[in-house]
């Protein structure tokens, strides 16, 4: 089970021949992700060397055989010729929005955009297209941009997170922050508590997937027994998630909000992490979540502990 990605997910890397795209395509392959091809416009027909993948059941333990995958000019080719159903985007900001929409139009069901620094005006348009496609009945989802990606431990990693800190299990993690997600996962794994799926939704003000989208999936997933939600100051996404949890979610949720000490009006790295006009403070988010029965971890060091106490 788990959510969004599993061992059957067939991944195309958009921007596979760039330095970062190549590095992480190889990293995902080494984790065991089923990387089926790459896309770089103008480089169609080339072959990309992903290096060895892990041994599969029935094979000798250790490194499996080396994997070479085709590079296509278009995402449509990746879908029709290689059967890709998920995409991981490493295209630099000027072309990122175009890459996302290309993936939508090619029929990719799960589009994960890692790229940091996409202009918000581009994301407003992308979001508009996404909503339109979904209203028309297309099965499509965008995670990111500016996110670490999605991982179902032991099955499929699409993104830049360090795979080795994860452990297969029953806790869902959803977060606006990258390294803070690793922190939570590291804590869980150290306590021997595994994760069903970890989703980084990204730190930009306009993105593809909200907390509620992921919580809905976790709620329906039998394998997920508890959830860690990691928010940040700025915006109202955590408050909306709290409302939804109160009305819909029976599973235990622990939460941490980064930025309780951040001064108003200052952007804390992420474009979305800013307290403006007295809105979006950590305190307001803590309060909303607590009212929804979520247990708050006041310190980032006790995220796993807090959830464990509810299980």
């Amino acid at each position, binding site marked *: 089970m788990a959510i969004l990605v599993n061992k059957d997910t067939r991944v195309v890397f958009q921007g596979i021949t760039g330095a*970062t795209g190549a*590095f*992480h395509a190889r990293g995902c392959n080494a984790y065991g992700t089923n990387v089926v091809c790459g896309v770089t416009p103008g480089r169609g027909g080339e072959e990309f060397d992903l290096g060895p993948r892990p041994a599969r059941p029935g094979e000798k333990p250790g490194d499996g055989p080396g994997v070479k995958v085709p590079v296509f000019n278009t995402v449509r080719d990746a879908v029709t010729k290689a059967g890709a159903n998920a995409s991981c985007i490493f295209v630099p*900001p*000027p072309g990122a929005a175009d890459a996302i929409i290309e993936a939508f139009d090619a029929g990719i069901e799960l589009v994960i955009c890692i790229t*940091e*620094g*996409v*202009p*918000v*005006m581009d*994301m*407003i*348009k992308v*979001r*508009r297209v996404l909503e339109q496609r979904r209203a028309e009945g297309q099965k499509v989802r965008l995670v990111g941009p500016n996110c*670490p990606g999605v991982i179902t431990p032991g099955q499929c990693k699409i993104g*830049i*997170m*360090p795979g080795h*800190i994860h452990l297969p299990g029953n806790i869902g993690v959803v*977060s*606006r*922050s*990258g*390294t*803070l997600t*690793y*922190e939570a996962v*590291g804590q869980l794994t150290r306590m021997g508590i595994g994760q069903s799926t970890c989703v980084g939704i990204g*730190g930009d*003000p*306009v993105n593809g997937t909200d907390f509620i989208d992921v919580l809905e999936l976790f709620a329906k997933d039998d394998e997920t027994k508890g959830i860690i939600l990691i928010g*940040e*100051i700025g915006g*109202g*996404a955590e408050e*909306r998630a709290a409302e939804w949890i109160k009305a819909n979610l029976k599973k235990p949720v622990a939460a941490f909000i*980064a*930025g*309780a*000490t*951040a*001064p108003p*009006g200052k*952007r*804390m*790295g*992420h*474009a*979305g*992490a800013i307290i403006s*006009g*007295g809105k979006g403070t*950590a305190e307001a988010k803590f309060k909303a979540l607590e009212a929804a029965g979520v247990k708050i971890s*006041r*310190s*980032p*060091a*006790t995220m796993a502990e807090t959830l464990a106490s509810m299980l």
Partner: protein
Amino acid sequence: MKIHEYQGKQIFAKYGVPIPKGIPAMTVAEAEAAAKQLIEETGSPITVVKAQIHAGGRGKGGGVKVAKSAADAVELAKKILGMQLVTHQTGPAGQKVRRLYIEQGLDIARELYVAMLVDRDARRIAVIASTEGGMEIEKVAEEHPEKILKIWIEPAVGIAAYQARELAFQLGLGKESLGKFVKLLTTAYEAFTKEDMSLLEINPLVILKNGDVVALDAKINFDDNAEFRHTEWVGLLDEAEEDPVELEAGKAGLSYVSLDGNIGCLVNGAGLAMSTMDVIKLEGAEPANFLDVGGGANEEQVKKAFSMILQSPKVKGIFVNIFGGIMRCDVIANGIVAAAKGLDIKVPIVVRLEGTNVEIGKQILSDSGLKITPADSIADGAKKIVAAVKGA
């Protein structure tokens, strides 16, 4: 990125957003020439001398004054140019006025408020308007939320004329101003989207006695992510208005915010960097800064980041907190060692490394001879640095 009012108005002019006649002035002599030119062009002796700083609330702080003659304008320019202007947005130290904008005086009938910004919850651009022009909008929103009008713009269509008209009716504009208001909103929206703004605030937007609608102010922030398609922004940046340390960090590709405490932080990732500040506070101390070296920083950037923290006189201890995803721990360690080389570091340093190549990183640090206290978790690190700073 923020720009000055006069630069914002130059952008308005390009898009046809109605603005008063005005001329920027960097010196008193230029202010005098500007005032004389405006008086000649408009036939009215009234001009307004406006301090150009990036903070709002300039009028209340004494940075905007009406001059009744050219000589009057010169006197005001002398007074305002070089003053430390204190507003609710500058902090108690204020901001030195280095530039002026001389503008024609207008016969104002009403002052309104109009802003455009990215509404992250609606994932649209929102237009906010209020009859309470010239006021602090945060205060209006708090005390009279019913006086804040809001519309959302469909990105595929742009601002619809009916939406602008609806706002105009709710603001109580007369027939003679209706079309002019619609035109102002439409052109301003075009400027907002084409110039990649993240905020556009016109406070006040004025209705003149003859019914004209004019942007009397222009506060513009750009979306930094869109810098790659706006090479002209470099020319609009006024470095004197920026925090020098934050500016320096930005040039090195680092995200840095100065804070009031005494524990310097070097962290990878914005969320973890904020959390590191939070955990220091929970331990009873205060962070000196927010510093995110990003996911892919190189040794040079880490070196830069570490020396920036070291140079700050208020820093009494340093906490390095790294959870390497794509960031390799050996790169961090090499950067720290390179920055510390040759310096007599007196403050305690606590380093917590986790993730990729962590063993190599720890080895580099212990081989360096630097006096570094290792920590094995975020809590452990925070405890150790707070104890070390308080014990010193």
